[in-house]
């Protein structure tokens, strides 16, 4: 190995790049830390990171903030399914606007992975408060209950899902919404999936008004 010693290296031809290359599988190392540069370019808009062992590499830029999903119309049908939630998602906000069901039905939320929606193993509780009456409470292990919606009710509010444990794919759920002019509902719970979450579904009955959307990060 030969060593070039100089205080500056400048290209010899005007406006030409200065090329530094390794030999064969060797790469360019720079600085006292002998930081290794990758030999191949990344893809557009990637950024460079270190592995902590002096090796730099191109990686995708972290997404900043939430990604807003595509709103699902709930004026008909029995499901509002949001699929293709990307890997690495740790928080999902589900937003309800004027959502209505045809009968006295519980709006429910189920979570799923690539194998399907899961309908057991939920630990949750839901309470509804109406002005002048006692609270009505419901529990289910088959889904997160979001509240019993009388046919005249419309649901306006949101549900927040957060990844509590990435090893067991455990999600925490917190829901609060207005159910009618004098009624509100809250619900909370946890659910562990078999694999990483890829989809969430709102259902329980037949929708006849409103819309639902999600945002995630």
């Amino acid at each position, binding site marked *: 190995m030969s060593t070039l010693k100089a205080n500056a290296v400048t290209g010899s031809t005007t406006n030409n790049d200065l090329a530094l290359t390794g030999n064969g599988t060797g790469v360019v190392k720079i600085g006292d830390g002998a930081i290794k540069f990758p030999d191949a370019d990344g893809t557009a808009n990637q950024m460079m990171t270190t592995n902590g062992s002096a090796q730099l590499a191109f990686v995708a830029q972290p997404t900043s903030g939430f990604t807003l999903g595509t709103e699902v119309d709930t004026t008909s049908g*029995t*499901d509002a399914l949001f699929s293709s939630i990307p890997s690495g998602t740790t928080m999902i906000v589900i937003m309800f606007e004027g959502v209505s069901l045809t*009968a*006295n*039905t*519980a709006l*429910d939320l*189920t979570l*799923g992975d*690539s*194998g*399907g*929606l*899961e*309908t*057991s*193993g939920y630990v949750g509780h839901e309470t509804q408060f*109406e002005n*002048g*009456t*006692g*609270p*009505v409470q*419901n529990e*289910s292990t*088959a*889904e997160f209950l979001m509240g*019993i919606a*009388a046919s005249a009710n419309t649901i306006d509010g949101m549900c927040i899902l957060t990844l509590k444990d990435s090893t067991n794919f455990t999600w925490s759920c917190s829901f609060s919404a207005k159910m009618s002019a004098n009624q509100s509902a809250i619900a909370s719970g946890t659910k562990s999936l*078999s694999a990483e979450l890829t989809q969430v579904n709102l*259902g*329980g*009955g037949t929708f006849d008004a409103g819309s639902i959307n999600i945002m995630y990060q």
Partner: protein
Amino acid sequence: MKAFVAIVKSTGGKLDKYETFDTEAEADGHVLKYGGFVTTSPPGNTEYWVIDPVTKTAIYDEDIQDVARSMQNWTAEIGDTDRTMKRVMEDLIDDAGLVITGRTKANYDAKKAIRARKPQ
């Protein structure tokens, strides 16, 4: 609900995991990867589906849902009466044998009528 359902997992006749598809071929492909069986999607809430992995069937038990819905309706109805006749007042009237009249009696009678209709 899409036309075909891949029942990925069930326990004791209760649905644990499923995925719905527009075509049977798509559902078959899912089962090939994740296990289970394919059938046509039953109607109704999945909580009231009865799954039989031996005969590879999934049926909707409307009777069970009707019972649950009746209980939900009844709970909401009796809850509404708390505005005018709370349970503690009802018990006090029953236990102390209080003689009540007028609006109090009307509210008490209304609540007792609803309580008598509690679904089994």
